[in-house]
Protein backbone atom coordinates (compact mmCIF):
# COMPACT_ATOMS: atom_id res chain seq x y z
CA UNK A 1 0.00 0.00 0.00
CA UNK A 2 1.68 3.16 -1.20
CA UNK A 3 -0.41 5.48 0.96
CA UNK A 4 -1.83 8.76 -0.25
CA UNK A 5 0.27 10.15 -3.08
CA UNK A 6 0.50 13.86 -3.74
CA UNK A 7 2.24 15.45 -6.69
CA UNK A 8 4.22 17.55 -7.13
CA UNK A 9 6.08 17.75 -3.81
CA UNK A 10 7.03 21.35 -4.52
CA UNK A 11 5.57 23.89 -6.89
CA UNK A 12 6.71 27.44 -7.49
CA UNK A 13 4.48 29.80 -9.42
CA UNK A 14 4.53 33.46 -10.28
CA UNK A 15 1.82 35.74 -9.02
CA UNK A 16 -1.24 35.40 -11.26
CA UNK A 17 -0.35 31.97 -12.62
CA UNK A 18 -2.41 28.83 -12.20
CA UNK A 19 -1.45 25.88 -9.99
CA UNK A 20 -2.89 22.38 -10.12
CA UNK A 21 -2.23 19.95 -7.30
CA UNK A 22 -2.86 16.23 -7.58
CA UNK A 23 -3.87 13.63 -5.05
CA UNK A 24 -4.19 9.86 -5.37
CA UNK A 25 -6.07 8.43 -2.37
CA UNK A 26 -5.51 5.00 -0.93
CA UNK A 27 -7.20 2.37 -3.06
CA UNK A 28 -10.56 1.44 -1.59
CA UNK A 29 -10.97 4.67 0.35
CA UNK A 30 -14.11 6.54 -0.60
CA UNK A 31 -13.57 9.82 1.29
CA UNK A 32 -11.01 12.44 0.23
CA UNK A 33 -10.14 15.65 2.05
CA UNK A 34 -8.01 18.70 1.26
CA UNK A 35 -6.43 20.81 3.99
CA UNK A 36 -4.06 23.77 3.84
CA UNK A 37 -1.27 24.12 6.39
CA UNK A 38 0.50 27.36 7.29
CA UNK A 39 2.49 28.46 10.30
CA UNK A 40 -0.01 31.21 11.10
CA UNK A 41 -3.33 29.42 10.47
CA UNK A 42 -2.36 25.83 11.19
CA UNK A 43 -4.44 23.18 9.45
CA UNK A 44 -7.40 24.67 7.60
CA UNK A 45 -10.08 22.49 6.05
CA UNK A 46 -10.74 23.20 2.40
CA UNK A 47 -13.05 20.57 0.92
CA UNK A 48 -14.33 16.97 1.24
CA UNK A 49 -15.52 14.37 -1.26
CA UNK A 50 -17.24 11.09 -0.59
CA UNK A 51 -17.73 8.58 -3.42
CA UNK A 52 -16.47 11.33 -5.73
CA UNK A 53 -19.34 13.66 -4.79
CA UNK A 54 -18.59 16.99 -3.11
CA UNK A 55 -19.84 16.92 0.49
CA UNK A 56 -18.52 20.13 1.97
CA UNK A 57 -16.49 22.91 0.34
CA UNK A 58 -17.06 25.47 3.05
CA UNK A 59 -13.34 26.06 3.51
CA UNK A 60 -12.59 26.88 -0.11
CA UNK A 61 -11.91 30.49 -1.01
CA UNK A 62 -14.74 30.91 -3.50
CA UNK A 63 -13.22 32.95 -6.24
CA UNK A 64 -10.00 31.24 -7.25
CA UNK A 65 -10.04 27.76 -5.73
CA UNK A 66 -11.75 24.71 -7.17
CA UNK A 67 -11.51 20.98 -6.53
CA UNK A 68 -12.63 18.00 -8.50
CA UNK A 69 -12.70 14.26 -8.16
CA UNK A 70 -13.34 12.89 -11.65
CA UNK A 71 -12.75 9.28 -10.61
CA UNK A 72 -12.10 7.30 -7.45
CA UNK A 73 -8.36 7.25 -8.02
CA UNK A 74 -7.55 10.92 -8.04
CA UNK A 75 -8.57 14.39 -6.98
CA UNK A 76 -7.24 17.77 -8.08
CA UNK A 77 -7.10 21.15 -6.39
CA UNK A 78 -6.78 24.05 -8.79
CA UNK A 79 -5.84 27.57 -7.80
CA UNK A 80 -6.31 30.24 -10.44
CA UNK A 81 -4.45 33.53 -10.42
CA UNK A 82 -2.25 32.49 -7.49
CA UNK A 83 -1.39 35.11 -4.89
CA UNK A 84 1.50 35.17 -2.38
CA UNK A 85 -0.98 34.47 0.45
CA UNK A 86 -1.76 31.13 -1.22
CA UNK A 87 1.73 29.93 -0.32
CA UNK A 88 1.28 26.97 2.00
CA UNK A 89 1.55 23.21 2.24
CA UNK A 90 -1.55 21.60 0.77
CA UNK A 91 -2.37 18.26 2.33
CA UNK A 92 -4.63 15.61 0.90
CA UNK A 93 -6.05 12.85 3.09
CA UNK A 94 -8.30 9.87 2.54
CA UNK A 95 -10.35 7.66 4.82
CA UNK A 96 -12.22 4.43 4.37
CA UNK A 97 -15.68 5.95 4.30
CA UNK A 98 -16.10 9.17 6.27
CA UNK A 99 -14.52 11.96 8.29
CA UNK A 100 -15.36 10.16 11.53
CA UNK A 101 -12.59 7.68 10.79
CA UNK A 102 -8.81 7.84 10.68
CA UNK A 103 -7.47 10.21 8.06
CA UNK A 104 -4.44 9.03 6.09
CA UNK A 105 -2.42 11.98 4.88
CA UNK A 106 -0.10 12.43 1.96
CA UNK A 107 3.22 14.21 2.37
CA UNK A 108 1.77 17.38 0.94
CA UNK A 109 2.55 19.80 -1.86
CA UNK A 110 4.46 22.91 -0.85
CA UNK A 111 3.21 25.78 -3.00
CA UNK A 112 5.32 28.91 -3.19
CA UNK A 113 3.91 31.93 -5.00
CA UNK A 114 6.52 34.53 -5.84
Amino acid sequence: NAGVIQTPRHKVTGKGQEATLWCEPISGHSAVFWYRQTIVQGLEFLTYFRNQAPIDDSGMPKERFSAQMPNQSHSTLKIQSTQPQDSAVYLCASSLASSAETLYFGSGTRLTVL
Partner: protein
Amino acid sequence: AQSVTQPDARVTVSEGASLQLRCKYSYFGTPYLFWYVQYPRQGLQLLLKYYPGDPVVQGVNGFEAEFSKSNSSFHLRKASVHWSDWAVYFCAVNSANSGTYQRFGTGTKLQVVP
Protein backbone atom coordinates in the same frame (compact mmCIF):
# COMPACT_ATOMS: atom_id res chain seq x y z
CA ALA B 1 -19.25 25.03 16.84
CA GLN B 2 -16.80 22.25 17.44
CA SER B 3 -13.17 23.18 17.97
CA VAL B 4 -10.01 22.13 19.75
CA THR B 5 -7.45 24.20 21.60
CA GLN B 6 -3.87 23.17 22.17
CA PRO B 7 -2.64 25.76 24.63
CA ASP B 8 1.06 24.90 24.40
CA ALA B 9 2.74 25.82 21.13
CA ARG B 10 6.01 24.24 22.24
CA VAL B 11 6.98 21.72 24.92
CA THR B 12 10.52 20.70 25.80
CA VAL B 13 11.21 17.53 27.77
CA SER B 14 14.28 15.53 28.63
CA GLU B 15 14.74 12.14 27.05
CA GLY B 16 13.33 9.52 29.39
CA ALA B 17 11.03 11.95 31.16
CA SER B 18 7.25 11.71 31.11
CA LEU B 19 5.15 13.82 28.79
CA GLN B 20 1.72 15.38 28.74
CA LEU B 21 0.42 17.39 25.79
CA ARG B 22 -2.83 19.23 26.43
CA CYS B 23 -5.95 19.34 24.29
CA LYS B 24 -9.24 20.99 25.17
CA TYR B 25 -12.25 20.51 22.94
CA SER B 26 -15.50 22.34 22.45
CA TYR B 27 -18.32 20.20 21.20
CA PHE B 28 -22.05 19.91 21.81
CA GLY B 29 -22.68 16.21 22.16
CA THR B 30 -20.31 13.28 22.16
CA PRO B 31 -17.11 13.94 20.26
CA TYR B 32 -14.78 11.67 18.39
CA LEU B 33 -11.22 12.72 19.24
CA PHE B 34 -7.91 12.07 17.55
CA TRP B 35 -4.21 12.66 18.11
CA TYR B 36 -1.96 12.82 15.05
CA VAL B 37 1.80 13.28 14.81
CA GLN B 38 3.68 15.06 12.04
CA TYR B 39 7.37 14.37 11.49
CA PRO B 40 9.44 16.84 9.44
CA ARG B 41 8.45 17.05 5.79
CA GLN B 42 5.77 14.40 6.19
CA GLY B 43 2.01 14.27 6.42
CA LEU B 44 0.15 13.57 9.62
CA GLN B 45 -0.09 10.05 11.05
CA LEU B 46 -2.61 8.77 13.55
CA LEU B 47 -1.37 8.09 17.08
CA LEU B 48 -4.70 7.16 18.64
CA LYS B 49 -8.40 7.88 18.51
CA TYR B 50 -11.30 7.99 20.94
CA TYR B 51 -14.76 6.79 20.13
CA PRO B 52 -17.37 6.72 22.94
CA GLY B 53 -16.36 4.01 25.39
CA ASP B 54 -13.34 3.49 27.62
CA PRO B 55 -11.99 6.97 28.42
CA VAL B 56 -8.35 5.83 28.33
CA VAL B 57 -7.14 5.04 24.85
CA GLN B 58 -3.89 3.32 23.99
CA GLY B 59 -2.01 4.26 20.86
CA VAL B 60 1.20 3.49 19.03
CA ASN B 61 4.72 3.86 20.43
CA GLY B 62 3.59 3.94 24.08
CA PHE B 63 1.26 6.91 23.77
CA GLU B 64 -2.08 7.04 25.54
CA ALA B 65 -4.76 9.67 26.03
CA GLU B 66 -7.60 10.16 28.46
CA PHE B 67 -10.99 11.58 27.56
CA SER B 68 -12.64 13.73 30.21
CA LYS B 69 -16.14 15.00 29.58
CA SER B 70 -16.20 17.08 32.76
CA ASN B 71 -12.99 18.88 31.79
CA SER B 72 -13.61 18.85 28.01
CA SER B 73 -10.12 17.50 27.61
CA PHE B 74 -8.23 14.81 25.74
CA HIS B 75 -4.65 15.03 26.95
CA LEU B 76 -1.89 12.91 25.43
CA ARG B 77 0.61 11.17 27.69
CA LYS B 78 3.73 9.09 27.44
CA ALA B 79 5.64 7.61 30.34
CA SER B 80 9.14 7.87 28.86
CA VAL B 81 9.96 10.10 25.90
CA HIS B 82 12.47 9.07 23.24
CA TRP B 83 14.45 11.41 21.01
CA SER B 84 12.52 10.06 18.02
CA ASP B 85 9.33 11.55 19.47
CA TRP B 86 10.57 15.00 18.39
CA ALA B 87 7.67 16.12 16.16
CA VAL B 88 4.53 18.24 16.02
CA TYR B 89 1.42 16.79 17.63
CA PHE B 90 -2.11 17.69 16.58
CA CYS B 91 -5.39 17.09 18.36
CA ALA B 92 -8.57 16.86 16.25
CA VAL B 93 -12.30 16.61 16.92
CA ASN B 94 -15.20 15.31 14.90
CA SER B 95 -18.54 13.62 15.39
CA ALA B 96 -20.38 10.57 14.19
CA ASN B 97 -21.98 12.78 11.56
CA SER B 98 -20.24 11.74 8.39
CA GLY B 99 -21.07 15.06 6.77
CA THR B 100 -18.69 16.99 9.01
CA TYR B 101 -14.92 17.19 8.87
CA GLN B 102 -12.14 16.83 11.43
CA ARG B 103 -11.15 20.12 13.00
CA PHE B 104 -7.55 20.41 14.12
CA GLY B 105 -5.81 22.32 16.85
CA THR B 106 -2.82 24.50 16.10
CA GLY B 107 -0.37 21.81 17.13
CA THR B 108 2.26 21.40 19.84
CA LYS B 109 5.90 21.12 18.84
CA LEU B 110 7.69 18.63 21.07
CA GLN B 111 11.42 19.05 21.53
CA VAL B 112 13.41 16.31 23.24
CA VAL B 113 16.70 17.23 24.87
CA PRO B 114 19.39 14.90 26.23
